[in-house]
């Protein structure tokens, strides 16, 4: 490159004062001449260029958003909460796939009438607590220890995730229950037990590890359904009015226990 732009012309060009022919010359020249490009770089506002670079880095780094996270953000959930939920194993595709199994049971239930209904109603409330077990706990959450040392209250994190799991499983199950024969109040009889089991598991998780808490609640539930059906020869006993009210009562007690023991999630090994 033997010809370079005169410094005073570069300055005029940078200021926007260059006359048209001259500007044209400069522009034809610059893309190929590193010397003149270097000269002109000093004449452009560095702060502004730094800001634009910041934007570029931001775009390059922006963490990939899964469909769940993107969806949450669209309905107005704040960025960082959506990110937390998006990382929950319970909300990832594999988990949602498991929920879809409920649909399979529903279809089976549709063909088997009463037995089908019992199985469906017994299994549906177990979905949220399985999700919670998967979302939190020293064995299943790899960032458990680092998370404890962070200021965000671990219980808050657990509750956010529990709520997300509850909402997802409730929605999936509600859709599935439409497949059951005869739209009937009994198709929604899993709602109260769902809530009851979830809150009880959370309350128990103040004493035991989350998976153990959820496991024991699941066992007790299934036994109640089975025994209730056997003893009275009415398989849907647990889901009747008395059963629903009991579930609500249990849920209320569990919520109270949970509220009183929020501290126990804050350290390793439970109660400080």
């Amino acid at each position, binding site marked *: 490159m033997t*010809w370079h732009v*005169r410094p005073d*012309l570069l300055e005029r*060009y*940078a200021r*926007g004062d260059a006359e*048209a*022919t*001259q*500007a*044209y*010359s400069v*522009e*034809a*020249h*610059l*893309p*190929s001449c*590193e*010397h003149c*490009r*270097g000269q*002109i*770089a000093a*004449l*452009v506002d560095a702060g*502004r*260029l730094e*800001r*634009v*670079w910041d*934007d*570029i880095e931001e*775009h*390059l780094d922006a963490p990939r958003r899964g469909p769940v996270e993107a969806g949450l953000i669209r309905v107005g959930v704040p960025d960082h909460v959506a990110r937390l939920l998006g990382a929950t194993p319970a909300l990832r595709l594999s988990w949602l796939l498991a929920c879809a199994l409920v649909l399979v049971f529903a279809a089976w239930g549709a063909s088997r009438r009463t037995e089908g209904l019992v199985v469906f109603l017994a299994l549906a409330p177990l979905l949220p607590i399985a999700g919670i077990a998967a979302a939190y706990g020293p064995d299943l959450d790899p960032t458990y220890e680092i998370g404890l040392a962070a200021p965000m209250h671990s219980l808050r994190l657990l509750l956010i995730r529990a709520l997300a799991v509850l909402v997802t499983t409730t929605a999936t199950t509600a859709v599935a229950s439409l497949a059951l024969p005869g739209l009937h109040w009994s198709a929604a009889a899993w709602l109260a037990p769902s809530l009851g089991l979830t809150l009880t598991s959370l309350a128990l998780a103040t004493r035991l590890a989350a998976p153990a808490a959820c496991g024991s609640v699941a066992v007790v539930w299934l036994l109640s359904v089975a025994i209730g059906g056997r003893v009275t020869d009415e398989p849907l006993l647990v889901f009747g009015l008395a059963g629903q009210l009991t579930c609500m009562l249990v849920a209320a007690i569990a919520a109270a226990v949970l509220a009183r023991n929020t501290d126990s999630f804050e350290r390793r090994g439970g109660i400080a």
Partner: protein
Amino acid sequence: MSAERSDVEVLAAVADGDRRALRVLYDRHAPWLALRLARRCADPGVVDETIQDTFMAVWRSAGRYSGQGDVGAWIWGIAIRRLIDALRRLPRAEVLVAEVHDRPCVEEDVLLGVEHGDLGGALSRLSPELRAVVQATVLDGLTSREAGRLLGIPAGTVKTRMMRARAQLREELA
């Protein structure tokens, strides 16, 4: 500035995913891009957005640089098209049609020294609309359709104006 990597080498590093190489390219080219884009669009916000889009596109398509022509020219090709895209999303009032002078189409590789008075004079006697299409097609390397989008006129009009510009210049320089 000795022992520095050439633009081609830096671009190859960008194609490899080297973020720091992108920064090098940015530091070298963003300044003149900012100035050149500003002479085609009066809105600094749109210019900033275009610079950002350009380097994102450079990041993604660094591997597709064919090696033909300078890296700077390749980047300009990306930038001007990003500007056109941005302008299509905006009301036309934002577009500044820059004052421009022609280069004779037959001698595109001749560098215009500022001292070439009579050529510059012939160009300056073109009307602003003719100069604008010449700048868009010759200097910026756009197709008639792209030039039309940049300037907000139909492609056909671009072509007719180019013909008139060429005819006028040939007449003057003959």
